[in-house]
């Protein structure tokens, strides 16, 4: 894809700025988009959000680089980046962003047939269909390829049975992309990739209560669920290859997550006081805060560096190492925040704890998942050792 000329870039920026200013509902300014992305009820109930979603759908700017026949605007990545920057500048968010746009969409574009693309992409581009990911199983966590969900070819349809777990938002999803076993003789080579309508008979999604109280993840049970033959993506037994590609899109989207860099220092002065030398009055905790904050800065510099290198065609390996740095730094930060709050960081509910305190407590509990999901800390280290460093075994 050709780079934009600087002059075109500036012109498009002006155009984007004007359109966004005219169309983004001011009531949504600085409202976190994740709220609607993760909660279908909140999305349905909010008229501003619905208006904004519709406008972006019509404009095709939720997925600006997709072709217009798939609901996109047919623009370059450079255009997309400018739209994103201008959106951020006005405290806005992309109302179309979803598992569908970040993971399934790019995967279908690569592996789907034209019928599948036309059937699904426009509804992803309008955020009218919510997707969930049926990968992990109780016996297949880090070792994803050990999955056992059965899929039998019944001639005119597929019949699937089994249990998935850690399926985000399955209770609210319209469709699910599922990894199933079509060959029990081969491990990776016996997996296929199916698109399943969550309204199909025989599917039950049960929310899991996490230690943070969140019920975002579900168990999904498939009991002799019939799936049309045309819902197979790619070839039979090609599912592992497709899934690996999809997980790459997931990792890329994770590494885009802006690490929260609100400095903890002012909060620490409030909660812990200041000593005669102007320091946070808890030397041991302060030393750990400083260390974490410095690592956080170096991490942010690393994200910027790798982005710049990637743009210049330089090396872009080391995503696994990056994920482990990120999870470690963010988890420690979440713990430090709770530790700064002391006894006030230990509340679950009720007025005696401020909203910020309760949010910090739950965020800390939630952060424990960062080194588990999307490839555990241990699996990422294995990948770094073998793929990036070339160690044997």
């Amino acid at each position: 894809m050709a780079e934009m000329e600087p002059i075109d870039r500036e012109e498009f920026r002006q155009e984007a700025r004007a359109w966004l200013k005219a169309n983004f509902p001011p009531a949504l300014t600085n409202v976190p988009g994740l709220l609607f992305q993760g909660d279908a009820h909140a999305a349905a109930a909010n008229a501003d959000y619905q208006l904004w979603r519709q406008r972006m759908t019509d404009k095709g700017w939720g997925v600006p680089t997709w072709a217009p026949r798939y609901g996109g605007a047919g623009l370059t990545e450079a255009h997309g980046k400018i739209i994103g920057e201008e959106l951020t500048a006005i405290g806005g968010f992309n109302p179309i962003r979803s598992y569908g746009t970040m993971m399934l969409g790019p995967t279908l574009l690569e592996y789907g047939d034209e019928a599948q693309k036309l059937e699904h992409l426009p509804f992803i581009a309008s955020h009218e269909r919510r997707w969930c990911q049926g990968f992990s199983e109780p016996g297949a966590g880090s070792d994803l390829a050990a999955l056992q969900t059965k899929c039998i070819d019944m001639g005119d349809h597929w019949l699937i049975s089994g249990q998935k777990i850690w399926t985000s938002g399955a209770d609210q999803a319209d469709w699910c992309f599922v990894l199933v076993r079509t060959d029990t003789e081969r491990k990776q080579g016996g997996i296929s990739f199916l698109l399943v309508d969550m309204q199909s008979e025989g599917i039950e999604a049960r929310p899991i209560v996490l230690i943070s109280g969140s019920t975002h993840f579900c168990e999904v049970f498939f009991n002799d669920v019939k799936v049309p033959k045309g819902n197979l993506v790619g070839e039979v037994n090609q599912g592992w290859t497709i899934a690996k590609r999809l997980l790459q899109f997931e990792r890329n989207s994770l590494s885009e997550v802006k690490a929260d860099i609100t400095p903890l220092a002012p909060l620490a002065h409030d909660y812990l006081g200041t000593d005669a030398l102007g320091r946070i009055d808890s030397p041991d905790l302060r030393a750990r805060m400083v260390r974490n904050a410095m690592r956080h800065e170096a991490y942010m510099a690393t994200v910027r560096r790798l982005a710049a290198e990637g743009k210049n065609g330089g090396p872009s390996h080391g995503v696994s190492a990056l994920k482990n740095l990120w999870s470690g730094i963010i988890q420690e930060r979440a713990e430090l925040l709770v530790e700064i709050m002391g006894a006030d960081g230990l509340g679950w509910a009720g007025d005696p704890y401020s909203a910020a305190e309760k949010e910090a407590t739950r965020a800390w509990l939630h952060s424990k998942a960062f080194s588990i999901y999307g490839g555990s800390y241990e699996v990422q280290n294995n990948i770094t050792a073998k793929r990036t460093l070339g160690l044997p075994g």
Partner: protein
Amino acid sequence: MAVLNEEQTMLKDMASQWVRDRLPVTALRGLYDHGGGGLSGSDGYDADAWAEMAQMGWCGIIVPEAHGGADFGYLSLGLVIEELGRTLAASPLISSALVAASALRLAGTQDQQARWLPGIADGSLIGTLALDEGPHHAPERTALAATASGDGWTLSGTKRPVQDGMIADLAIVAARTSGVAGDRDGLTLFLVPTDSAGLERLALDQIDARRPAQYRFDSVNIAVNDVLGEVGKAADLIDAIRDRAAIGMAAEMLGSATQAFDITLDYLKTRVQFGAIIGSFQALQHRAAELFGELQLTRSAVETALAAIDADDPALPALASLAKATAGETLHRISSQMVQLHGGIGMTHEHDAGLYLKRARVAEQCHGSTAWHRERWARLNGY
């Protein structure tokens, strides 16, 4: 394990058995709402189980025989607390039988001891310490005001969190009779029945399903006889009580850490991934080996500190901080690794890992955090 005498071995075995039968982790789960917080309306403990504990004499382990106790020493009480810690058993044993009893033993007059200790010893009365006022332990910053009034005192101000505060009958309250927040001089302890007029209690819904409380004192009148120790000179006494409390909490954390490690080790020996028992992966083996080493240090620090109370060792303050900080760090690491090594299932409320994680952070914070005790140890040792 410390070297125990026959009675101590019996006590420990009994506690171990009883806790597993009567207060396994599922009992704690009963105090939780299904969504993960403390059950609404719960007292944060099991009153029937508490009665059984009292029946077995655990509430009087450090109480002198003259007041209905066994005078059996802190190491013995620590053994029981450690066993309770294994299953995260929720009870006011530390607050009452260790902290309140210690306060009365250390500074109570004959009359005060005779009035309160028998009830503590037989479990019919629950005592606690009302010391902290802010999110961080800082006794010298005590601001709750005690003003002389008639031949007694009037208390006004707020305490929070008060451990087991909703079920306590007696609160030992630190107040300021002179000076300003920040002074070590001017602190006084008061024995305050929690049904005193003007004392309002509010339950705190904490992540560990316990129910600490916020106490609001609105001109609560205290008789002159209810001063514990010397007026205005309680700072050292508070330190002595808090050190015992911290050591008790460290004993609980030792039990929790040991059990969390054992559960995790069992999981490593059974869970299969990539066609192998995950405990055969060297990276996890080394992590387990390192955690085992930390557990060794923790046990030594805790048992040494418990024995130091019994021996009236002048090094007690430093040993208390060593025990609390070491146990705090070890339990922090092990409870975090318990979740990590269990993977996704460890993130669910249904699994016990989260319960260990949540109690761990509360215990780390209680009676002086890990950071607080590290700094104290540093000061005591000239760093």
